[in-house]
């Protein structure tokens, strides 16, 4: 299984300056789809997409003003029903009808991978972009694990996965479809069987390879009326072997190296497994200020040689105000591993700045990799409106490339943490006592003391001494 990506909620707010103006009455439209992909390991991935569009009075004019572009990452979010329930409530049919009846929390959280997202963006309604619609796209991807969910069995059905079957489409949906990846099924070896047999299929180039999907359209009344419900089943004719999954062309790994609480190194490994094509990657790193980066230690090596990035943008951190921002365009040679590493020093926080669980460590957000990855099969440019929604997850730019954005794993870094407990107080007290005593002891060791004799003798002696001093004779 690919390294689980963090849930990064990305909200782009692009607001025009001109504000409000009247437009046509809102026209809502909903498309929903579910893509089921059996994986060679015997696991199965399911991706829901719900797209709602409405015309809005919020309008935007001209190009995006970068002044309003914000990027924020929360490196850690625990997935649970707390963030699934409000997400479901955004759906027009909630979880009453259509594909969303399958969104049953106890099954969705019995998976090995879970990713949930909300995207909001403005879409031009015409070519000149004089008016816009707003698009709300909700995606949910889960991977059902043959070892955990399937108890070792590798045959899947909708009921097994979600403990629900499909009964009716959402009445508000203009399109409601289930796609099943049957690429292996259609080839000669016939490893996979899908039941009920699909009526139509769809072919496309996804992630650079040709894929065939069986389509089940819920709006097609015959589909559900035959048996009152739709329970798609996948059967492996030959059980898949436990082989390592095929390696994608671009993948990455990130880790903290070194030990101890003073210094460390952030290393990112970028893998290009394409046998002959090199391609550039845009690497975006935001690092919290309490890791003080040493930019002069930034090294990028591929195949043992230094790799000079063609573009570097670095914005240093300000303590307690803004994180480091490091953005680089790096060319990845064919069939290579590129290591990007930068050293840092761990800052000592003020004692009120520590989190309630300081010994857990502090999270560092994932790096973001954006790349145009060369594809194996040339793809035709497609009409976004007509093709399925999942097609736009990895948009094809010019037929030979597809766009991929990858998030590496977040990191957990330990900072020097005082022991917030009774011994800590004891240490503080002891240090104070030692500091106080040190001065006196130093004094005692470096000085010699002797007694000043009290002035004895009367006036006569003092006079005599005065005279003796005038004569240059030692006093009495």
């Amino acid at each position, binding site marked *: 299984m690919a390294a689980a990506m963090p849930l990064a909620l990305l909200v782009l707010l692009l607001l025009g300056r001109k504000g409000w103006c009247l437009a046509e009455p809102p026209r809502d439209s909903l498309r929903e789809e579910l893509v089921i992909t059996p994986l060679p390991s015997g696991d199965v991935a399911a991706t829901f997409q719900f797209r709602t569009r409405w015309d809005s009075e919020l309008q935007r004019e001209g190009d995006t003003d970068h002044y309003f572009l914000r990027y924020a990452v929360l490196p850690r979010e625990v997935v649970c029903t707390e963030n699934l329930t409000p997400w479901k409530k955004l759906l027009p049919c909630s979880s009453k009808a259509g594909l969303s009846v399958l969104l049953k929390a106890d099954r969705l959280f019995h998976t090995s991978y879970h990713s949930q997202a909300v995207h909001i963006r403005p879409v031009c309604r015409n070519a000149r972009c004089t008016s816009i619609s707003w698009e709300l796209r909700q995606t949910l991807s889960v991977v059902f694990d043959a070892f955990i969910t399937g108890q070792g069995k590798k045959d899947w059905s909708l009921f097994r996965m979600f403990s629900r079957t499909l009964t009716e489409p959402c009445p508000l949906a203009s399109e409601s479809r289930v796609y099943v990846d049957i690429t292996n099924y259609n080839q000669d070896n016939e490893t996979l069987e899908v039941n009920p047999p699909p009526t139509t299929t769809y072919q496309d180039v996804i992630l650079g390879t040709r894929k065939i999907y069986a389509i089940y359209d819920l709006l097609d009344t015959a589909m559900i009326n035959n048996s009152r419900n739709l329970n798609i089943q996948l059967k492996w004719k030959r059980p898949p072997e436990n082989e390592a999954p095929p390696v994608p062309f671009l993948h990455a790994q990130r880790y903290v190296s070194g*030990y101890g609480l003073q210094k460390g190194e952030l290393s990112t490994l970028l893998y290009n497994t394409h046998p002959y094509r090199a391609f550039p990657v845009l690497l975006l790193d935001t690092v919290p200020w309490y890791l003080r980066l040493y930019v002069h230690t930034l090294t990028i090596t591929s195949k043992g040689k230094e790799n000079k990035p063609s573009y570097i943008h670095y914005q240093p951190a300000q303590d307690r105000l803004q994180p480091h921002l490091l953005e680089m365009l790096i060319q990845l040679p064919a069939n290579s591993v590129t290591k990007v590493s930068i050293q840092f020093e761990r800052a000592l926080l003020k004692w009120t700045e520590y989190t309630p669980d300081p010994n857990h460590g502090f999270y560092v957000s994932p790096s973001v990799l954006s790349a145009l990855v060369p594809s194996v099969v040339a793809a035709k440019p497609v009409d976004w409106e007509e093709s399925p929604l999942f097609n736009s997850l990895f948009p094809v730019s010019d037929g030979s490339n597809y766009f991929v954005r990858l998030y590496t794993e977040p990191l957990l870094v330990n900072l020097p943490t005082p022991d917030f407990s009774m011994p800590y107080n004891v240490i503080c007290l002891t240090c104070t006592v030692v500091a106080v005593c040190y001065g006196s002891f130093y004094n005692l060791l470096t000085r010699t003391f002797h007694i000043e004799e009290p002035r004895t003798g009367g006036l006569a002696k003092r006079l005599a001494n005065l005279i003796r001093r005038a004569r240059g004779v030692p006093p009495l």
Partner: protein
Amino acid sequence: MGLLSDPVRRRALARLVLRLNAPLCVLSYVAGIAWFLALVFPPLTQRTYMSENAMGSTMVEEQFAGGDRARAFARDFAAHRKKSGALPVAWLERTMRSVGLEVYTQSFSRKLPFPDETHERYMVSGTNVYGILRAPRAASTESLVLTVPCGSDSTNSQAVGLLLALAAHFRGQIYWAKDIIFLVTEHDLLGTEAWLEAYHDVNVTGMQSSPLQGRAGAIQAAVALELSSDVVTSLDVAVEGLNGQLPNLDLLNLFQTFCQKGGLLCTLQGKLQPQDWTSLDGPLQGLQTLLLMVLRQASGRPHGSHGLFLRYRVEALTLRGINSFRQYKYDLVAVGKALEGMFRKLNHLLERLHQSFFLYLLPALSRFVSIGLYMPAAGFLLLVLGLKALELWMQLHEAEVGLEEPGGAPGPSVPLPPSQGVGLASLVAPLLISQAMGLALYVLPVLGQHVATQYFPVAEAEAVVLTLLAIYAAGLALPHNTHRVVSTQAPDRGWMALKLVALIYLALQLGCIALTNFSLGFLLATTMVPAAALAKPHGPRTLYAALLVLTSPAATLLGSLFLWRELQEAPLSLAEGWQLFLAALAQGVLEHHTYGALLFPLLSLGLYPCWLLFWNVLFWK
């Protein structure tokens, strides 16, 4: 402070210290030893308790039932290992993949500085295999490690079998919040060191290894497992790590909890837990365990592959299955259940283990002595050095005064600060020479092994050990001749100044050592302090010399070996002891080069030169 800055009272105090110096020293030394012995009695030892909230109150139900599977895996593993003569990497990879792990391998090679005769290895190359169980819906930021070190002989097959069976069981569970790494290393600790260095992408010991392909975030805790039979009668736990580092006490408490829950017989240092602490028997038995722990911790070597994890601040311990002649035997399911329980509780951890003690001594599995209670023992011993130094300082001071004003009135005379120019200049030569001897002791044996094998009929390892001993002995002859070049205008002041410097040097070193590795500091203080305090060029010199030789670092090592075997109830004969001593020397040097153990440089660069200074004092003419 007022007491000390008032010259009259200060003088009185100084007199007191001078006059009562010898009894005070004896008292302090005896108090130190007595305090240490008292550590095993109940007011000073406390019951252990779980401090970590996340592991305390929650109960887990162990469901592991893969005993047959573990045995089958172990048999297969042993057969494949016998066939290939090395770690069956391909078989392990296949099996780990079949139980649903993400499998990676790492190859490493290391040329040891000289051949290791106890393990019979020199040019080592091997492969580590590890499988990662990815926690569902988590982002691989934290992980736990279960590791089985495999040596060159065919032990530990059952541990590999249990590891695989546990992996298969764990893989079917949904509750994991941390990734779990199942690591099988070749060449026991060398493989572990290679893997750890590669995981943290550092190179501490000059190991050559391939970079790791798969990682799983920050390792929170690790458990090493050593099992060589299908049934065990008891589980022994080892905590002492590299350079005397110890894991957090909570990890040991966790193990003890599951020992009690599963009704397992668990031992510490191979000793059973005494039940009765109120009578004398319990504490005496505890004292044996405590002494064994002190000896093992003082040795600074990793007692199990967990010891190497501690450097990276990964709390770790080693569990050893012991199969002796006891009646009641446990099968692998019982051990597996204990491990499952431990991992499930470690999985609950929200923070790194930090709540409980990091510095402790253990007289039994359920009793501990915290740092606040055992430190005074070392403090009393070091006080002897302080008292002696104070006495010398004052004597020097008075000698100075006496030289300046012979027969001067004691009260109002103004004592000048002692002019230290002459005293210090005479110290430079012995200091430099003894330090140079230490450096030679540290560098020459490994560097000169090839020269030695050319001219003498010995193997490399023998050459290293014999060179070590030769330089050590040569040090005794060399430096005490050096002061002849120094002016001898004040014969007593010379050795007094030298002894003063040596005392302070020794006290500083022992103090620092006792802070980081109490056992080593205490052991060295116990032996070195009396001889150091007594050394002077008058009186029964041969007696002093004998005492000094008997308490030199090397003799301490030899003595510790005998004591260790005595406590383990396997006494050594003299010849055996000598052989063991030679092997221990070679191991000490090797462990410094392969794992970064600090005992060898500490002794050769720090304590040996310091001890030579006292030798020098003794033979001052």
